[in-house]
């Protein structure tokens, strides 16, 4: 065996520059961390984004208002329905219309299912990257049960494109409530099993507690929202503070952490899954009857198919909405909702006519991600993995 002299094995004193990503397996979402390392210690971290930039906002200007929906599916693709709803609410705000109660409740139900899916997959990935592969399998399987329910409603597992301006594509299928409750029951059991595997696990606790911590003050300064902000103790939830849809009629708690570390972010998400299940349970019980979209006479939704095929009035309406788009009056609005990662904002401008003049997105994880250097500075290289995972950066949303 070759002989080494001892001084050769001493780690160099000069900081080493290391590229983590963009194709590092733990950098899910294609992002690059340009690290400056002193041995294993992170001296500095420069987060470089934009690898998934697809010109989403510019592309919106080329289609009709309705044709933006498929793009929103591809923002945070872990919870597309929440993006659908956020965009629909923005355009409805500009149009000055409110969707009927049944539509509001269905949007709440589907949105909360999407939130559970998002939190499941975020926690699953974070656990897996810390070696807890079983938890990953449990939670991703749980998401799959929910995907089956969503697929039955929307026709797609992920890219649902189910919302419409002024309503939803169609009503819920027969027996939806029972199947959703069954799937949720299994999901909550899986969440509980995961919890049992992790929250008393020495390795998991060592890797997450006090790691990636941030104060409430710093988090607010960075513009943090969502579970990440709540993990620091700030009970800011758009659903509570600025209620939309039917959220003010539903009873739920806003779980908060105290230390703002990886552990708190993980636990807040777990607890939010339970709160979402609570919301869904109440909403299913109270689900009102009635139309799933605004009346045809507003000229916003595609009219009834039978009438479209047999009467000239609805043929014209269908024709105009498809070829020219919904006519949105000139103006601009900022509309914001609580998406899985936090405050998802749409700032839209209309100059009148069937196409958006501007559609700007405020992606929650963009603000959250910019604190990553502060979270990992001075920590060990492996701490980046759970910290990055708990921030839940989603490339589609962050880069757009």
């Amino acid at each position, binding site marked *: 065996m070759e002989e080494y002299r001892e001084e050769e094995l001493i780690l160099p004193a000069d900081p080493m520059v290391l590229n983590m990503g963009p194709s590092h397996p733990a950098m899910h979402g294609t992002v690059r961390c340009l690290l400056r390392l002193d041995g294993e210690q992170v001296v500095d971290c420069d987060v470089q984004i934009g690898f998934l930039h697809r010109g989403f906002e510019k592309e919106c200007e080329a289609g009709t208002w309705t044709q933006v929906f498929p793009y929103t599916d591809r923002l945070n693709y872990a919870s597309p329905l929440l993006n659908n709803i956020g965009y629909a609410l923005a355009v409805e705000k500009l149009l000055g219309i409110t969707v009927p109660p049944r539509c509001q409740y269905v949007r709440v139900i589907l949105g909360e299912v999407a939130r559970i899916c998002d939190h499941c997959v975020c926690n699953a990935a974070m656990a897996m990257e810390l070696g807890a592969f079983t938890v990953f399998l449990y939670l991703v399987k749980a998401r799959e049960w929910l995907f089956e329910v969503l697929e039955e409603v929307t026709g797609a597992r992920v890219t649902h494109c189910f919302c419409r301006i002024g309503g939803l594509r169609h009503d819920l299928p027969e027996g939806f409530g029972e199947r959703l409750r069954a799937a949720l029951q299994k999901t909550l059991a899986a969440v509980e099993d995961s919890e049992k595997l992790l929250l008393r696990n020495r390795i998991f606790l060592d890797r997450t507690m006090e790691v990636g911590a941030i104060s409430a003050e710093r988090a607010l300064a960075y513009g943090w929202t969502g579970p990440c902000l709540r993990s620091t103790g700030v009970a800011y939830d758009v659903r509570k503070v600025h209620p939309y849809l039917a959220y003010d009629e539903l009873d739920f708690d806003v779980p908060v952490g105290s230390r703002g570390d990886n552990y708190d972010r993980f636990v807040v998400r777990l607890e939010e899954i339970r709160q979402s299940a609570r919301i869904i349970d109440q909403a299913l019980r109270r689900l009102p009857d009635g139309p799933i979209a605004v009346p045809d006479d507003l000229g916003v939704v595609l009219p009834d198919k039978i009438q479209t095929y*047999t*009467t*000239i*009035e*609805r043929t*014209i*309406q269908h*024709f105009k909405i498809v070829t*020219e788009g919904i006519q949105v009056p000139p103006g601009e609005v900022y509309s914001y909702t609580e998406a899985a990662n936090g405050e998802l904002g749409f700032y839209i401008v209309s100059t009148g006519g069937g196409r958006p003049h501007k559609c700007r997105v405020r992606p929650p994880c963009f603000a959250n991600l910019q604190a990553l250097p502060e979270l990992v500075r001075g920590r060990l290289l492996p701490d980046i993995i759970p910290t990055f995972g708990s921030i839940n950066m989603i490339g589609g949303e962050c880069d757009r």
Partner: protein
Amino acid sequence: MRKLTIDGREIEVAEGTTVLAAARALGVEIPHFCWHPELSVAANCRMCLVEVEKQPKLQPACQLEVADGMVVHTDTPRVREARRAVIEYLLLHHPVDCPICDQAGECKLQDYYMLYDRRASRLWSEEGKVRKRKRVIFGPHVIYDAERCVLCTRCVRFCREIVRDPVLIEVHRGDHSEIAVAPGRTLDHAYSLMTAHVCPVGALTSRDFRFQCRVWFLVSTPTICPGCATGCNAFLDHYRGEAFRLRPRDNPALNRCWLCDDGVLAYHLHNDHRLTVPEVGRGDDARRAAWDEALAEAAARLRKVPKSQRAAVLSAEHSCEENWALATFAREALGVERFFETGRAAGAADDLLRHADKNPNRAGVREMLGAEPEPFERLVEEATAGSLRAAVALGAAAPVPGAGLQRLEALVSIAPRRGPLPDAAQVRLPSPSFAEAAGTYVNARGQAQPFPRAMPPRGEALEVPDLLARLARRLDSTVPFRSAADVRAAVGPRLPQPQPATEGGAP
């Protein structure tokens, strides 16, 4: 002058102005089917009803003359309900035709339904609809669908008042009313496509445009009609490199809001018989060539003939820019002293729009050459006699058959499409159509009218200045331009001052 108030805003207009015109001057749009700025008032559609204070019934704005102190409201619940009712009645017997109707997308019925009605049908069965004639051939260019007709009589008034050929009439009464061609006639006057243009709905449609393209795909570029020396202002409607129609563009001083049938169909000059690649050889020996080879062949043939026996043929079909480029090239690179002119043969004229000279830029050729070109007939004579042996010719058309051109030892044709001149040439160089290069036409009245490029040249066609600059290099000579931009800069000062043309279509 009369002072009145419309929707709370005061305006002073001349005596005799209608409320509708006064409202338009204020920017208040009052919906209408039958009213047209160039036609007499019919006031039959009732879409323009407005509320006038101290008058118990709603009044048609298109007919009502303004009076001092008149207070008009165009957007009250009564007015809205009246408009809604008008649309409901008009749609009562309307067929479910939008998916197969060419007008869909630019149809006033569709627009007004979305703006003023948006209610569901109250007709409980389709059986209740009155059936009428469909697909009635009115003339060579126009087809009629009586079920779609709203009987606004714009077409009847257009034929009677503008063309002064009252070929269209209204027949029958009540819900059986429809438009018909006068017995023993067909709608075959020179402006028949304008009846389809003034039709606010899909009742009269162009047979040429029928089922060719959905209108919302069309891109409109302002242009000048290349059909004759009048130089009517128009829009070229095109999609993916294919042209579909010319549409009148308002110019009150020139064509008002009309085009003749030949003008609407002049877009065929862009689509049909195009020359898209350089070619060498004639008749059966013709073959496709690369640009290098075609230019080398052209240069070699031109060199063999002494300067005194070379000529250049300018084209009244082509823009000032292209003609100036050719004239300059011919003088400086070829030493040519003889300039001829080609173009399409003369045709029918009238006192409305059509000019006997079927070329858009004959006056422009003279401005660019600074002299009167020699007639095409003399070129044919001299070529036959052998006193001229080489020519560079712009344009595809020839006013007279020119068998003698075959005797030229070198005929280099620069043309956007096939025709007598390129067919007689040994070298054919493809150039852009009127839609593919910006340019200027000078019309018979001496007005210079610039027009932009609608789309890039088709195939391998090169802009004429570019092409000539390359040919000049092959002849080891130079010309004082390299690109279309250089030519535009040089041509600009030589043009009569351009007349500003107004934008926008007929209401």
